[in-house]
């Protein structure tokens, strides 16, 4: 082993340990940078971790499948984290109950806008049909969106990428956009963030304000429900 460092690399690069470690350390670094910039929207930790790890994989010629064998332990926690959203919801239940009506109306308006706007814009841009279908569920959290794409025979791995890109762009844009509209109601701001940009928007909302985070989490879960019904309907109506 000692006289052949390459064989050590071959061994390590195929083991889940290396890629799990890389994922955690790169994210820890990008998150520290984000904290050092006082959570500047452009210092989004997911965005920077993504391209750094991606570039590293390309440089070392590692396949995504090999990478994912290690990173899946992190990916798995998306499910339990969704369940965990019950706790902030429980702790803020009184505030949530008092805003139930604006929440449900905004949910309907928002989820219809999310699906219809992306399908119409994608058609307008002349994207191929399978790409349009794969982009349609982009506002809901990764696992759910991939399930919707699968049921329509679209490309779930493209959907995952669209979901993450949407989440990052939403998380970057939400604070400056809301500041410009002059809306200071953190319930409304958080709800919009979670609806449009799922978990990445929710993570951003928790950074800005606890109440915004709670409403964002609710929007994300409710939108997952509504979009599951909405996408197949919108696709039959809107896609040629």
């Amino acid at each position, binding site marked *: 082993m000692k006289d052949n460092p390459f064989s050590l690399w071959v061994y390590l690069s195929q083991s889940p340990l290396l890629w799990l470690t890389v994922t955690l350390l790169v994210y820890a670094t990008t998150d520290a940078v984000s904290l050092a910039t006082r959570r500047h929207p452009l210092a989004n930790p997911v965005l920077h971790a993504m391209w750094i790890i991606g570039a590293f994989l390309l440089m070392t010629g590692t396949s995504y499948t090999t990478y994912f064998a290690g990173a899946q332990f992190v990916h798995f926690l998306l499910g339990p984290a969704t369940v965990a959203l019950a706790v902030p919801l429980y702790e803020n239940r009184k505030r949530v109950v008092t805003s139930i*009506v604006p929440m449900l109306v905004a949910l309907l308006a928002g989820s219809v806008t999310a699906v219809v706007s992306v399908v119409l814009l994608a058609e307008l841009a002349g994207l191929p049909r399978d790409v349009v279908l794969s982009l349609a569920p982009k506002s809901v959290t990764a696992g759910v969106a991939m399930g919707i794409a699968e049921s329509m025979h679209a490309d779930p791995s493209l959907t995952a990428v669209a979901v993450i890109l949407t989440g990052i762009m939403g998380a970057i844009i939400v604070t400056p956009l809301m500041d410009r509209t002059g809306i200071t109601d953190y319930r409304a701001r958080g709800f919009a963030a979670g609806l449009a940009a799922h978990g990445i928007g929710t993570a951003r909302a928790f950074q800005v304000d606890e109440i915004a985070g709670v409403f964002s989490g609710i929007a994300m879960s409710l939108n997952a429900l509504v979009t599951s019904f909405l996408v197949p309907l919108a696709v039959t109506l809107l896609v040629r």
Partner: protein
Amino acid sequence: MLASLGLILLCQLIGEAVVRGLGLPLPGPVLGLLLLLVLLLARDRFALLACGPLRNAGVETASKGLLAHLSLLFVPAGVGVVQKLDLLASHGIAIVLVLALSVIVTLLATVLTFRLVSRLLRQQDAR
């Protein structure tokens, strides 16, 4: 801590099982969320339930630990972009523009509807 994590996983497991079993069109973890919420609410009503992870803010602490690093959990799926480089080379700019416009429109539609409805309700209450 361990029991709390176990309870969270159990809620998700039951959620997944029910969704699969009944063919419901909703994601398993969302049903798990509802289940945990019901458990927490039931605990306040029935002292009998306040044991194990449901005592001394056990499950609350574990959940907050998970949510503290919510962004991290999206990194593995995001790195999947390396598989789509050829598609992004041909349609990347259009895809990014479409997604960016759609997310802005969605944010505005949601936040404005929320504000409008809560303002209307407040006016009605005042009357």
